[in-house]
Structure formats: structure tokens, C-alpha cells
């Protein structure tokens, strides 16, 4: 009878730092210890970056990759734009700014993915 109240009276607030840190680990620690949760975090970042890379490759394949086929199928050889035959204009000039646009877009999005990841990892650390 004298023991029971002791076990029941656990009125310590769980909101103290000491109590929390024992039960919940930071995300960085999850990643450090390669727990399943940590792996999920790493994989989520990898998937996001790989998906982004996939978009870029898809855009590249659909634009540049189809050009040789288009040149064969469509009668573009005699189309002149700005006094230059279309294939020459496309392959000699237009391709380059297009590659730059793709690269610039990728860099912005990739940095944004990483910023989101950092926020995700830090958020729970701040809370704990």
C-alpha cells in the first residue's frame, strides 16, 4: 500500500528537456544510427533529387533526343529561319541557351530540395 502512490504519482511534466531527450532522438541521430527512420529521411532526399534529375533527362530526351528523328520525318531541311536552314540554327545556336535554362532550373530546384530537407531535419530537433 505504501509503494503504490509512488508509482502512480508521476506528475513530472514531460515537457522538460531532460524527459524529452531520453524518449525522442533527433533526426540527425536517427540518420547517424542508420535506423529505419533515418534511412527513410535519406531516401526521401535521394528520391526527390533523382526525380528532379529524371525530369531534366526527360526534357532533354524529348527536345534534343528527338531532333534526329524529326529531321528525318519532317521536311525541315529547306525551312529557313533568319536566313539560316532550320537544322543548322537549332543545332548550332538554339540548343545552347536551352541547355543553360535546363541547368539553371535544376540547380534552383535541387537547392530548394536540400533546403526543405534541412528544415525537416532541424524542425524536430528544435522541438525537442
Amino acid at each position: 500500500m505504501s509503494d503504490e502512490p509512488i508509482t502512480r504519482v508521476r506528475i513530472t511534466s514531460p515537457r522538460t528537456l531532460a524527459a524529452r531527450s531520453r524518449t525522442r532522438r533527433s533526426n540527425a541521430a536517427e540518420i547517424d544510427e542508420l535506423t529505419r527512420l533515418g534511412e527513410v529521411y535519406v531516401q526521401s532526399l535521394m528520391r526527390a533529387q533523382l526525380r528532379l534529375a529524371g525530369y531534366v533527362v526527360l526534357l532533354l530526351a524529348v527536345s534534343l533526343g528527338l531532333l534526329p528523328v524529326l529531321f528525318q520525318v519532317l521536311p525541315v531541311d529547306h525551312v529557313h529561319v533568319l536566313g539560316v536552314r532550320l537544322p543548322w540554327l537549332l543545332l548550332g545556336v538554339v540548343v545552347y541557351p536551352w541547355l543553360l535554362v535546363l541547368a539553371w532550373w535544376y540547380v534552383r530546384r535541387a537547392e530548394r530540395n536540400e533546403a526543405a530537407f534541412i528544415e525537416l531535419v532541424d524542425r524536430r530537433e528544435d522541438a525537442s
Partner: protein
Amino acid sequence: MKELTALLAVTIVTTATLVVGVFGLRISRTTSDFFVASRRVGPFLNASAISGEYLSAASFLGVAGLVLLRGVDMLWYPIGWTAGYLLLLVFVAAPLRRSGAYTLPDFAEFRVESQAARQVASWLVCLIGALYLVPQFQGAGLTLRAVTGAPSWVGAVLVAFVVLVNVVAGGMRSITLVQAFQYWIKLCALLVPALILWLAWHHDDSPTRHLHTSDWVEPLQGPHATYLTYSLILATFLGTMGLPHVVVRFYTNHDGTSARRTTLGVLAMLSMFYLLPTAYGALGRVYASDLVASGRTDSVVLELPERVLGGTGATVLTALLGAGAFAAFLSTSSGLVVSISGVLSQDVLSRRFGSVTGFRIGGVMAAGGALLLAAGTQGLPVAHAVELAFAVAASTFCPLLLLGIWWRGLTARGAIVGMIGGGILSGTAVLAVMLGVKADNWAGALLSQPALLTVPIAFAAMVGVSLADRARVPVHVGRAMVRLHLPETVEVDRGSYQPVN
């Protein structure tokens, strides 16, 4: 007079390269300085250096020569050499920097935790480096012959000598400065004459003779043209990431983010540069179409001023172009010699010599070996010879990097089988072409552009063997993925650089 001016220009570029190199020697004192420029290089300087190193004889002379020879389909060469950096950017740039690997063998060892994979990668670096060095030395010989009339071997030996002095004396730090400087020399040396030649052409009432022959001006005209074009696209798009001298440059970036920004800078700088060779090729068609018959299309860039302008103007422009071409050979050869000697000193000579001495001996071996090879093979267009090195890189290091960075299942055996298989298949084709094997049938097309076949085979081998070998997935693959993909600002355990064997 003409010879003297050209000689003077070549001497100035060479001396300037040596001076910047010696200046670098004063800064670089420790081994760490020597190898990686202490990682204090900013994205702009780094992008200039990568572009300077990358734009070789093939870009400066070879593309214009090929355009003159075969027309619009050849525009895929510079496109591929630029787009290669886009694929490098999206798949490799940041993770490779974060891996902390300095060379491709370092990456192989780090990722699949195997000394054997490291050895295979080291031999491949030497193979690709040598294949890439040979056309540089040939281009140097051709240039010196075109501008001064000296025999071909003089230019090759001269370039080899300057590169060696530079590499042996200054190491990477000086090379970074030298390379950055070389990009701007090359751009100016090609841009200024192009503008003047274009004005002269305009003044000449814009003649268009020889331009409208259909097999030159229209795309995909020759036999097997579609296959050849797609194979070329695959080799160049995927080969760039596997070039040893490009990969070491990424180590000098501060972190993964700056590695990406550097790559974006490289794309911009290459895009500017690659607008120019097409103009030379087309002008060459108008003014120098006899070069096609005489088989000297690679020297079209150097011969155009004489044909279009004549007189003092031509002398000055030829000298400028010769200087730019020399900058191209010097920078690319330096980068290649640095990366081959880095690999040789780490993996072959390290037991007998200190790392800096080993590095120097490795440099001598690399340049000497390539010089001998260059003496043995002649006659392939410079740009095509360089592109063959891309085909080997695309069939070996490209699958290693892509699968190593993005797929947890890659094993040491898979990596080794894929690299060896892809290397043997593509290497055989390349050597056959370099030694002059030719055929007009399918086999000939396959040999001259092997990538469309060998790259998928290498990927399939790596994936297939890794799947069969599933039990031996590297122990530290989880930590490796953390290291490769997490931004540096997240404080986590990234493992040690050298995996525990």
C-alpha cells in the same frame, strides 16, 4: 614574317603558361596544396579552369574541321560535349564532391569498398587519359606545322615538355590558375578572328559557294547516319562525367552546392565557345573546300585568315589562332597528365616514393607514354579521336558513377565486371579505329561509334552481376549514401573517408 609572328605568339602563350605555373609553385608548399589547391577555389575561377581544361585540340581545331568535312551532323559533337555537363550536373556533381573522392579510383574504392575495383578504375584512368592525350599531341604537331612549317613531332614534343615542367613544378594549384587563364585565351583567340573573318565575308558580298550541296547541308545523309548520330550522342552525353581530368576538378570546389554552381558556370562558358567552331567550318566550306580533298580539314581554323584576308591582317590572326590552339593543347594535356600521374603515384608508385616524388615520376611516365603512342597512330580526325575516349568513359565510369551514387545494390563484383566488360568492348573498337581499321558495313559503323552498344552492355553487366551478388552489398552502403547526398550543413556522421576493409 608569317612564320616568325606565329612562332612569337606560340612562344608568348607557352612562356605565360610557364610563368603562371612558377608563380603557383611559390604558393603551393604542402602536399595538400599541391594536389587540390587547398579547396579555396571559387565557382567562377573553378568553372573557368574546368572549361579551360576541357576545351582541347578537338574543340579548338577538330570541330571546325569535321563540320567542313561532313556538315551539319557534326554539330552534335560540340552539343554532346556541352550537354555532358548537364548530365554530370544532375547526377554526379554534388554527390561526387561530397564523397570526398579525389579521383575516380578513390570513388570506386569508397563506394564498393574494394581494392580490386580501385585497381581496375586506375587502369581505366590511364587508358582513357592516354586515348585523350594522343590527339592533343597530334594536334600540337599539326598546328606548329601549319603556322611555321616545322615537322609534326616538334609541336608534340614541345607541348609535352611544357606540360611536364608545369605539372612537375607547380602541381594542381598552379594548374588551376593556368587553366582558368587558358579558357579566356582560347575564347578570345577564336572569337576575335571569327568576327573579323565574318566581316570580311560580308564585305565579299557573302558568297555561299559549296554550301548548298545536300549531303553536307542536310542532316543524316550518309550510310548508317541515324545510328552514328545517336551513338555519338550517347557517348558524349554520358562520357563527360567519366573523364578523369574533369572529375578531379570537382574536388577543388568548397562543397556540393558550389560544385553545382561551378557546373552551371561551365555550361555557360562552353555554350559561348561552341558557337564559334560552326562558323569556322561553314566559312571553311566557302573559302577552303580544297582541304577536304587534301585530307587536311583539321587545319581549317588556322588556314582561313590567309585565304579570306591575306596580308598582315592574316599574319596577325593566324598567330592569334595558333596561340589559342597551343593554349588548348597545353591546358588539356596538363589536366590529363595531372590526373594520370595522380593515379600512378597513389596506386603504383606510392610504395617506393613519397607522394610528391611519385606524382612527378607519374607525370613523366604519362607524357612520355602518350608521346610514343602519338608517334604510332596518325590520320584520324582529331575530334573523332577525342570522342572515342568519351565512348570508353561512357562505357566504364558512367555506369559506375550513376549506379554507385543512386543505387544501393551495387556490389564490388558488379562494378568490376561492368567496368572491365565495357572497357574491353569499347577499348577494342577504339584501338581498331585508331589503328586504321575501316569498313563500310554495319561492323564499320559499330566500330567507329561503339557507345550505343557498349554503354547498355556495361550497365546491364553491372546491374546483373550486382543482383546475383546481392549478399555482398558493401557493409557501409547506408553511411556512404548519407555522405553522398546530405548537404554539408546537416551535422551527421558521414563515416571516415577511407572505408574500413
